[in-house]
């Protein structure tokens, strides 16, 4: 099939009444959770994750992707109007977006953010189409050692980019590996780490883990703080940016798109990093960097474009290599696995309807989001006013129903609560949940590839260093990891030198 045939197939799939409806549901929910502080796209996808098991694989993935990029659109609304980012990738939008609102320019800020998101989202989908197919062809040459190496590199990049300590992020990655070992052994079929609980024979369910770590713990954290949503009273009727605004923003939008897509395609780099890098670049290239932080429209257009473009880039490693590069994609990955579909090099050829349906739905979703976000802005402003004491019981209820609906087991609900408490304590103690979820999802494959590689090499780890791709990728991961600990090593050496000098003296 040619490129055009594939696109037509994609639109046929996504324009079917059910898929269209769930695309709309996805982008609407995405905008909603993007707008609302206190629940992000991860929490929302986690809550709806079990519901996707009862849908067709294509419908489920279209809805989940819709929530994801919809949240990127919605996040900017609360950043601009309330100075509270609805989701983490919109943090940087607060800097200039809120200042624009204070100057009575909330309309153009919201407008350029939606239009920038639309342009970036659309261009990144084109990039995804262009890059994913050839990359999948290359990945067909991968064997178990190469897959093991790429997965290890993905985990290392996620821990490298962790907001807090790399050491703690690595610890969480190890915890994810341990937790994923619960249940039947993949190769021998023997139960392990079930501690006498029959319910653990199938392993710890991903839904219980993610809803606990992201849904329940998020509520617990928010219960400790009072989220105030004082909306800055300003006009947001004139949403279309002026020609001058466009002239100032178009470069930022295109640069933001390139940055978002480029960085997003690297495993582990997501929308948050892309938006920050875009902001820094805009400030650097601007002739008037002093305007940044005081209401520069480029400071809104660049990061908002970057965080949307990153979604397309992020999908590359999932679709072409079968490796989710962040916790959110891990859910998309698991949703496909549940339906018996393995993302990876054979995915595009084996399931063209899902791949091209997803691509077309992203085009469609971007159009729907502009319609939802610009003319209906007044509704989202009202949504922003929903107080948290009304919102949190609903979030908790959806978490409970979501997990129970999987197997009708109250045991899974207890597991979810345990992870809720663990997630809450992890945040208090400065640990990130994303590396844990990523390794939890990847471990079955990681283990299978490691064991297969060792069996192939008769127990020699040299197999990872004699094959060029595996050796290259693992060396890169090792150097990356080392670069994180380099400052500590340097400090240690300096101290030793100073100590030696003192002794000599």
């Amino acid at each position, binding site marked *: 099939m040619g490129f055009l045939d594939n696109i037509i197939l994609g639109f046929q799939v996504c324009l079917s009444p059910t898929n269209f409806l769930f695309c709309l549901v996805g982008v609407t929910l995405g905008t909603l959770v993007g707008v609302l502080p206190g629940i992000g796209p991860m929490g929302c996808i986690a809550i709806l994750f079990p*519901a996707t098991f009862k849908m067709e694989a294509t419908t489920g993935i279209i809805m989940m992707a819709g929530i994801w990029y919809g949240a990127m659109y919605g996040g900017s609304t609360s950043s601009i109007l309330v100075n509270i980012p609805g989701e983490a990738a919109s943090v940087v939008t607060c800097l200039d977006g809120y200042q624009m609102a204070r100057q009575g320019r909330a309309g153009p800020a919201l407008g350029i953010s939606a239009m920038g998101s639309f342009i970036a989202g659309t261009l990144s989908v084109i990039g995804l189409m262009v890059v994913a197919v050839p990359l999948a062809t290359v990945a067909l040459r991968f064997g178990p050692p190469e897959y093991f190496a790429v997965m290890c590199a993905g985990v290392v990049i996620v821990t490298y980019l962790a907001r807090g300590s790399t*050491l703690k992020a690595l*610890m969480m990655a190890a*915890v994810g590996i341990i937790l994923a*070992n619960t249940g039947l052994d993949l190769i021998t079929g023997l139960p392990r780490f079930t501690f006498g609980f029959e319910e653990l024979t199938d392993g710890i369910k991903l839904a219980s883990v993610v809803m606990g770590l992201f849904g329940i713990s998020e509520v617990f954290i928010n219960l*400790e703080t009072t989220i105030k949503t004082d909306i800055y009273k300003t006009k947001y009727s004139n949403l279309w940016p002026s020609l001058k605004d466009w002239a100032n923003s178009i470069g930022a939008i295109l640069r933001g798109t390139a940055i978002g897509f480029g960085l997003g395609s690297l495993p582990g780099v997501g929308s948050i990093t892309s938006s920050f890098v875009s902001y820094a670049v805009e400030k650097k290239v601007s002739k008037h960097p002093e305007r940044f932080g005081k209401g520069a429209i480029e400071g809104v257009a660049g990061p908002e474009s970057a965080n949307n473009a990153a979604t397309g880039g992020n999908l590359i490693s999932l679709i072409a290599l079968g490796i989710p590069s962040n916790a959110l994609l891990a859910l998309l990955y698991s949703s496909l696995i549940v339906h018996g579909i393995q993302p990876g090099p054979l995915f595009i050829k084996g399931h063209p309807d899902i791949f091209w349906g997803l691509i077309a739905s992203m085009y469609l979703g971007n159009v729907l989001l502009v319609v939802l976000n610009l003319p209906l802005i007044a509704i989202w402003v009202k949504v922003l006013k929903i107080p948290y004491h009304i919102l949190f*019981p609903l979030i908790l209820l959806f978490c409970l129903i979501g997990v129970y609906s999987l197997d009708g087991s109250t045991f899974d609900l207890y597991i979810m*609560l345990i992870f809720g408490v663990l997630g*809450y304590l992890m945040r208090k103690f400065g640990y990130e949940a994303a590396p844990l979820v990523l390794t939890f999802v990847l471990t079955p494959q990681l283990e299978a590839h490691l064991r297969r590689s060792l069996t192939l090499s008769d127990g020699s780890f040299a197999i990872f260093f004699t094959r060029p791709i595996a050796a290259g990728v693992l060396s890169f991961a090792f150097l990356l990891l080392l670069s994180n600990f380099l400052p500590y090593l340097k400090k240690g050496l300096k101290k030793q030198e100073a100590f030696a000098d003192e002794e000599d003296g």
Partner: protein
Amino acid sequence: MRNLDRISSLFWLFFSIFILLESIHVGIGRLQKPQAGFMAFGGSMLLGMLSAALFVQTFFRKEQADTPGFSIPLWGRVLVVLISLVVYIILFEKLGYLIDTFLLMIFLLSSLKELKWGWILVSSFLITFLSYYMFTKGLGCQFPYGLFGF
């Protein structure tokens, strides 16, 4: 943060030792033929070493100023909500979805802020029935009926 790191690193260290022993019990096999406990053994070794490194690091690191902590009065809110969720799960199959969820919603809606009772009752009723309808009819989920048969 230093004290919190010391506590958490010790927790993960003991956890890793426990898993390490358990994985040996399950069987780690040989490199030529890894067994069921192989991966968990590797994971627990890694966790153990990293936790020990974090523990040691706390003795050489300067304390940072911006350390998050536990605010006792608000931490109480978390505990109350957690207990209510545990009670909800315990009673879930005994009382059935409708009654149990209705009671949970009343409790949660009234837990953070004083609201009018009429509003709380109507909202709880609507949330319970709409969620029940959406999940049973829309998504085909099955919920327990409980003692009263509904």
